[in-house]
């Protein structure tokens, strides 16, 4: 492969700095005491401690899954710390009390926390290691009855809502990493959009792992009541450590009758260096329950970071006429491995799902799409359309597609399309012959390839995603 292409795909990670801040880090290791310690630190009610312990018991009996097309040494779960939090006053009354070092960190990451300079029209909850440090626009949202706060705060302030929904979409014993998360989760975001309310601004959470050898186990829960709509954005970065960090999140979405949840992610965890040293292990369970009639859940993800990505944002289409969508761009470079896709489980009548997946592999990376479309017997008139495209850059990268389709109702319509393309010398030569250099050519090809997914992103995120791909694979954006 030409030198130009090599240079283009090897741009440095710009979020790899470490914030020097005094942290309260729990001793390494996992046992019941660890869980009790986390629960006590957060002054949690008994029911939540029980939830955790029950999950821990379930987890003990489970095996780490090995079916994914990713290869890594076994994670030593006793060698990581399950709680790390910047030391600060126990209760913050305003943003001015947030440690200035933290404010600077997030400013540097492009997420200013002062509302006067905050991102226009976006409310942000920022999670630093194990805890949420700030949430913007909370009061403004409360005026229309929207609850947007950290999970820890929700447990204290709105226990009835948390108890009603937590674990209803991803049960405690769902899978190895979800069970682990249910036992040790520390913080995350909580959003509740009451009946009939259209959320006036995008809600977003920015996750930052800062402490080495910690795990980030975030837990996010979003509930949209009847007729409510919300657009939620998630961003993530981590410093460049030579050790691996575990990130095992659980995200649950619940959409009642006629509700609409749009969840967008730009994942840019540290991916390790060009030799595959370091990087985040990203094992995430994300699932939405389209519970009510005519409800809609839409996942859009741009996955560019992490050494290993194991992630299948899914939708359970229970309500009649409910809609599930999955739009994904996954980019891997160097020795990154991604096994990502979705599950669309059709239970209700006339349910519809759309899957558009774009995988881009560069360097010696491996990028797999894995998706399940399941039409159950009661799902009369269900429809699915899936499109899985892979693009290879260079000679040493790999792409795979593993579609699983189970149809148990004769009236269902399922379509699947797949393609593999390659940015090769011939394509670049064609651009060059028209005066366009390789950098601009790659940019144009990649943006064209990802267009269907980028169109789904909210404006601010679309810009960020394009820039991120710019950093990752090219220099300029055409």
């Amino acid at each position: 492969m030409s030198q130009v292409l090599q240079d283009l795909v090897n741009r440095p990670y710009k979020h790899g700095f470490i914030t020097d801040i005094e942290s309260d880090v729990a001793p390494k290791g996992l046992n019941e005491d660890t869980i009790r310690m986390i629960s006590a630190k957060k002054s949690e009610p008994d029911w939540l401690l029980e939830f955790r312990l029950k999950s821990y018991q379930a987890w003990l009996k489970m095996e780490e899954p090995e079916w994914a097309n990713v290869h890594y040494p076994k994670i030593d779960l006793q060698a990581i710390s399950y709680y790390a939090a910047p030391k600060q006053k126990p209760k913050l009354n305003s943003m001015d009390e947030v440690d200035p070092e933290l404010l600077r960190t997030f400013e540097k990451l492009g997420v200013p926390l002062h509302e006067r300079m905050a991102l226009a029209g976006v409310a942000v909850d920022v999670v630093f290691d194990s805890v949420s440090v700030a949430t913007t626009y909370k009061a403004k949202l409360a005026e229309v009855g929207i609850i947007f706060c950290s999970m820890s705060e929700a447990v204290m302030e709105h226990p009835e809502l948390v108890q009603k929904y937590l674990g209803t979409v991803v049960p405690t014993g769902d899978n190895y990493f979800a069970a682990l998360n249910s036992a040790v989760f520390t913080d995350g975001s909580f959003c509740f959009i009451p009946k009939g309310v259209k959320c006036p601004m995008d809600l977003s959470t920015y996750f930052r792992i800062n402490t080495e050898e910690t795990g980030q186990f975030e837990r996010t829960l979003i509930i949209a009541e009847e007729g409510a709509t919300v657009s939620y954005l998630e961003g993530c970065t981590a410093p460049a450590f030579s050790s691996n960090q575990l990130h095992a999140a659980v995200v649950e979405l619940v959409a009642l009758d006629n509700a609409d949840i749009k969840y967008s992610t730009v994942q840019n965890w540290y991916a390790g260096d060009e030799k595959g040293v370091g990087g985040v292990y990203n094992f995430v369970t994300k699932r939405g329950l389209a519970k009510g009639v005519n409800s809609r859940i839409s996942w859009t993800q741009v996955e560019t970071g992490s050494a290993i990505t194991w992630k299948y944002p899914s939708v359970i289409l229970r309500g009649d006429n409910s809609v599930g969508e999955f739009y994904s761009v996954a980019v891997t470079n160097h020795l990154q491995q991604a096994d990502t896709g979705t599950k669309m489980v059709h239970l209700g009548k006339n349910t519809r799902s759309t899957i558009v997946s774009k995988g881009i592999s560069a360097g010696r990376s491996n990028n797999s799409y894995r998706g399940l479309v399941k039409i159950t017997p009661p799902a009369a008139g269900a429809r699915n359309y899936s499109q899985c495209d892979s693009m290879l850059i260079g000679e040493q990268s790999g792409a795979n597609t593993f579609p699983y389709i189970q149809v148990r109702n004769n009236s269902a319509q399922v379509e699947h399309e797949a393609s593999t393309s390659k940015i090769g010398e011939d394509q670049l030569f064609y651009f060059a012959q028209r005066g366009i250099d390789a950098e601009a050519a790659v940019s144009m090809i990649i943006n064209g390839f990802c267009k269907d997914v980028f169109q789904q992103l909210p404006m601010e995120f679309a810009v960020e995603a394009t820039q991120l791909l710019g950093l990752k694979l090219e220099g300029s954006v055409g």
Partner: protein
Amino acid sequence: MIYQDSKPILQVHGLCATVNGIEILKDLDFTVKSGEVHAIMGPNGSGKSTFAKVLAGHTAYEVTAGSVLFEGKNLFELEPDERARAGVFLAFQYPIEIPGVANSQFLRLSYNTVQAQRGHEELDPLEFDDFVREKMKLLEMSPNFLDRSVNEGFSGGEKKRNEILQMALLDPRLAILDETDSGLDIDALRVVAEGVNQLATKDNAIILVTHYQRLLNYIVPDFVHVMEAGRIIKTGGKELAVELESRGYDWVGVENNATMALS
């Protein structure tokens, strides 16, 4: 057209080139002056397309000897994209498909890049739209070509028209048309040829690489060259193409060998 006192655009001396270690071009000499139309003919494997790609700078080919001057400057000092911006244009035999990239977007980026190089003003999308539609009329292309992905799902003839459209936009000093006639039906051939004829001026030059004489009924060359085994073995006027059509390439080879034996 041959003009008195016209300047050389391309001067090729003793050019040798290999692909994967196999020598394809062997001591090739060739000169083109502004205003001229040259046809290079020859059987499959004679090195015609290789010559075209070497001029454009395709990385699969290695130049092992010889020199090429483009408007008096060493062509090999320029990268492929720099050559294009300097005014070397290659109409591809097999134009590449670029899924997801709208033709209009591609054409505009290409046009503006070349314009910027020449110190001319770039066009915004609206201005460019007017400009490109005008050029498309020349090739009887429907405006819906602008919204489609570059060459994706185009028929053979549509791809070739798209190539000549790019030539019309970029206004090159030297245009090399690599088997532009292949895959064209007679109507498309006529349209494409008329387009090329309208683009020919006394300040530019055109090299037609072709198997068949058919194209030369429409674009009349000033010189016809016969290529075999990596070099030009015979050069003549437009009547040479007609003779080749009736007598075949073997005839030139035999005659050439006979001439060489005599000398």
